[in-house]
């Protein structure tokens, strides 16, 4: 497809200050088995192009699923039409001279490609997991699923850039609920955040059957457990909750388009202001956060973003100090701050905006046992199930599926409905211990929503287990 596409499209590039054409093909396959029944299998293929034009002080885009030559020409005409119309009416027109010619490829490594395993084998595997999930008598709901996505992108522009990337990821999911005295408690496999760029060999790394039995036992145990009590305490937070904490209270507030006000009508702005970069103390000295598109198998790894910027690892926060925002080349021009390759679009039918890629909390030196044994009275929190934060990404409240009390340096009783709330500006300053590589997990979520028009995109987060002081923890009704 790429050579045909290039041969057809390249001569069509219009004579304007700048034009790019981004072709995207998305393949999606979802297989779910719920309560021992295979649900209708979903296979979808989505392809189209977006043409972006910057010309004479105006900009516009045209996007179409009509990939005939006539369809692409109509998209080019539409982009030119909007660029002419918007001349002199734009919030900002980029410095096009700073855009570089980029060429290169990126492909996810799949030791066992998705297509090599038959649909029947995948369905049979899910049915075996279903049986393992229903291993306790009070289980009322159970299910398992596998989602496979591949996203192929070709990017050409009038600077002679030529980029070809194909990202493939798999998201394994499990859910199991147990009921006791009209109250239901649910355990999931990591809050549906185990998405990675990998082939079907992901199941060589994860023993889904054993994990299913464990989740079933934990759901049954939770349904009979007392509510989490209300107290200010120390909280040890597992990676499958930490990723949400990083996502909502570091990732989103550092997005430069929020800081610049683009998102104020929808996803919100940020408590972070441009003058804070380079000097603001975001957290304790053990807080180190990177934008890292280079981590093998992580969900948003790539070589280029959707505006054609070369992707490199950069520190966002180092030793607790805020260094740079999550802003692409164009956003950085609006503030003269450093940029990262984070200009991403959910598909061919949406324009690129500042998005998280892989936003990672770098590991420290504490083992899990060292962290737990350092706590006299606290709680270990696992697996996100509720998230809410204000439009400036400051006042948050998050809920977890499972809490385990810590007494005198040891994990003790399980509690249900553990929630905690806090304020971002204070919370990270209470980060007191960061786990080592053995506690570190590479996770990712496929459904981060933002933008007008709205876009859902996949983002990666790798993080160790962490200990926080002075956390306001509370339970259910």
């Amino acid at each position, binding site marked *: 497809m790429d050579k045909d596409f290039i041969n057809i499209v390249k001569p069509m590039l219009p004579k304007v200050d700048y034009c790019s054409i981004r072709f995207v093909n998305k393949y999606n396959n979802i297989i779910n088995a719920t*309560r021992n*029944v*295979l649900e*209708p*299998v*979903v*296979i*979808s*293929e*989505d*392809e189209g192009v977006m043409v*972006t034009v910057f010309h004479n002080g105006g*900009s516009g*885009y045209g*996007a179409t*699923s*009509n*990939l*005939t030559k*006539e*369809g692409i020409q*109509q*998209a080019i005409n*539409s982009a030119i039409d*909007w660029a002419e*119309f918007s001349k002199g009416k734009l*919030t*900002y027109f980029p410095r096009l001279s700073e855009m570089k010619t980029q060429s290169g490829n990126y492909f996810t490594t799949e030791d066992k490609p998705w297509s090599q395993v038959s649909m*029947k084998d995948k*369905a049979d595997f899910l049915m075996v997991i279903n049986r393992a999930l229903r291993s306790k008598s009070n289980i009322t*709901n159970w299910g398992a699923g596998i989602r496979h996505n591949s996203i192929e992108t070709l990017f050409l522009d009038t600077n002679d850039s030529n980029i070809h990337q194909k990202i493939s990821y798999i998201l394994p999911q499990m859910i199991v*609920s147990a009921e006791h005295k*009209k109250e*239901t408690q*649910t355990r999931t496999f990591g809050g549906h955040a185990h998405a990675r760029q990998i082939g079907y060999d992901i199941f060589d790394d994860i023993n889904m059957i054993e994990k299913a039995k464990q989740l079933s036992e934990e759901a049954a145990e939770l349904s009979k457990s007392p509510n989490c009590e209300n107290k200010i305490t120390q909280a040890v937070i597992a990676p499958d909750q930490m990723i949400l904490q990083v996502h909502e209270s570091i990732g989103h507030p550092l997005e430069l388009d929020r800081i*610049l*006000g*683009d998102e*104020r*009508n929808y996803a919100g702005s940020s408590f972070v202001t441009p003058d804070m970069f380079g000097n603001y103390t975001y957290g304790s000295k053990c807080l180190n956060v990177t934008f890292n598109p280079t981590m093998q198998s992580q969900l948003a790894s790539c070589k280029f973003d959707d505006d054609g910027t070369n992707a490199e690892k950069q520190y966002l926060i180092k030793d607790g100090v805020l260094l740079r925002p999550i802003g692409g080349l164009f956003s950085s021009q609006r503030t003269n701050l450093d940029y990262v390759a984070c200009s991403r679009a959910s598909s061919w039918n949406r*324009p690129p905006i500042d998005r998280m890629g892989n936003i990672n909390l770098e590991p420290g030196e504490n083992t899990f046992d060292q962290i737990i044994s350092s706590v006299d009275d606290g709680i270990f929190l696992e697996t996100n*199930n*509720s*998230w*809410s934060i*204000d439009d*400036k990404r*400051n*006042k948050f*409240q998050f*809920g977890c599926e499972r809490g385990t009390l810590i007494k005198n340096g040891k994990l003790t009783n399980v509690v249900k*409905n553990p929630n905690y*709330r806090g304020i971002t500006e204070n919370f990270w300053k209470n980060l007191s211990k960061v786990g080592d590589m053995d506690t570190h997990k590479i996770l990712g979520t496929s459904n981060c929503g933002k933008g*007008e*028009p*709205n*876009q*859902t995109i996949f983002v990666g987060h790798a993080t160790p287990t962490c200990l926080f002081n002075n956390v306001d923890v509370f339970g*259910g*009704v």
Partner: protein
Amino acid sequence: MKDYFQQISKFLFNQLNSSEILILNFDAEKTDFVRFNKGKIRQAGNVNQINLIINLIFKGKTLRTSIRLSTNFNKDSKPLANILNFLRREIVELPNDPYLMYEKDQNFTNQVMQNNNIDTHLITDTIINKFKLLDMVGVLSSGNIIKGFSNSLGQINWHESESFNFDWSVYSKNGKAIKQNYSDQKWNQNIFDRLFLECTQKLNVIDYQEQKIMPGEYKVYLSPSAMNEIIDMMSWGGFSYKANKIGSSPLHLMSKGKKELNKIVSFSENLTNGISPKFHSDGFIKPEKTNLIVNGKYNNSLVSPRSSLEYSVKHNAAEYYESPVSIELEPGDIKTEEILTSLNDGIYLNNLWYLNFSDRNNGRITGLTRFGCFKVANGEYVGPINTMRFDETVYNILGEKLIGLTDKQQLLMDSSTYEERSTYNSTIPGALVDSFKMTL
């Protein structure tokens, strides 16, 4: 476009053998998106997309896939034929689907709203001129939306509408904002002028000194937009038959008769306004109105055809996710125009934001205040409040703590544009609630 849909339907149906059934769902939109920041254009362009979902049914098995179309039959026909062959090859590997159900009777519907030739450039210029001195941010989406259904048993349904949705906020110098929305099928300058006037009047008030609210319990007015956020959370399984059976519904205690709301609360799924299509993706025709909660008591759920087979109950053509697409909350008797007097001393909550559950089993919800929230004293605005987090149960908000509902409802069009423009909507009054709990 309908002719093209019929052409490809006929092309595919002609290739079927006697034991195969094919169901087609057609989705198309041609939309101009204009994104604004600081009263100017941030990004603008056009999206033209057509999607076809093809569902093959063969001897009790089902498999579906989707494809983008160009509307050029010479280009589309080959991939369509290839897809049909792919489905045939793969479907034999699958087990029988015990919950497979599709419409076998033929129900024809054709809803085509008048085309008003909305001029997005003209509207955009109007907006820019109006807000040139203000810090406005938002998005204008405009164009047509088409949804079609056909099956090889002979049924065809069509829904076509043209509309615009302008969703925006205006920020004052102190960082407070007023949020508004104007959506319709035809631009009316008088309505827009009136909304702009309301906006500038509220901006004067929102620039008053911020009123610091501390955690505690407050008498509040929840505007229709704020109520819509609460009802959205209730709809996360609350009206789903399946979710109530498996215990994941926030209203499962109500559905089991263990809890009730205030007697003035009645909810229905009401499709009579014609904004959402009346046909189900498997061809069933939806009832015009389904009473969900009547006088505070759980009355009926949304039941999908799959749930009807799993639980041996009658379905009401709800989609698989079993949540409302056009929900209505009946009005009450508090005079809308006198809401400040009725509130007297309390907080006027115009918008809520980022809601989620604190305790789903007990219908307990948390979230934050956002645009246009004011402290009110002696029936008058005092000033904007700081952002506050609330934490309350549905059973309090619409039950024990509910003082009343306003006598006027507001039609709220969903401005969501994930993947495609939404046709969801809700018709909701405002609510006066006592002792509403703020926590942070």
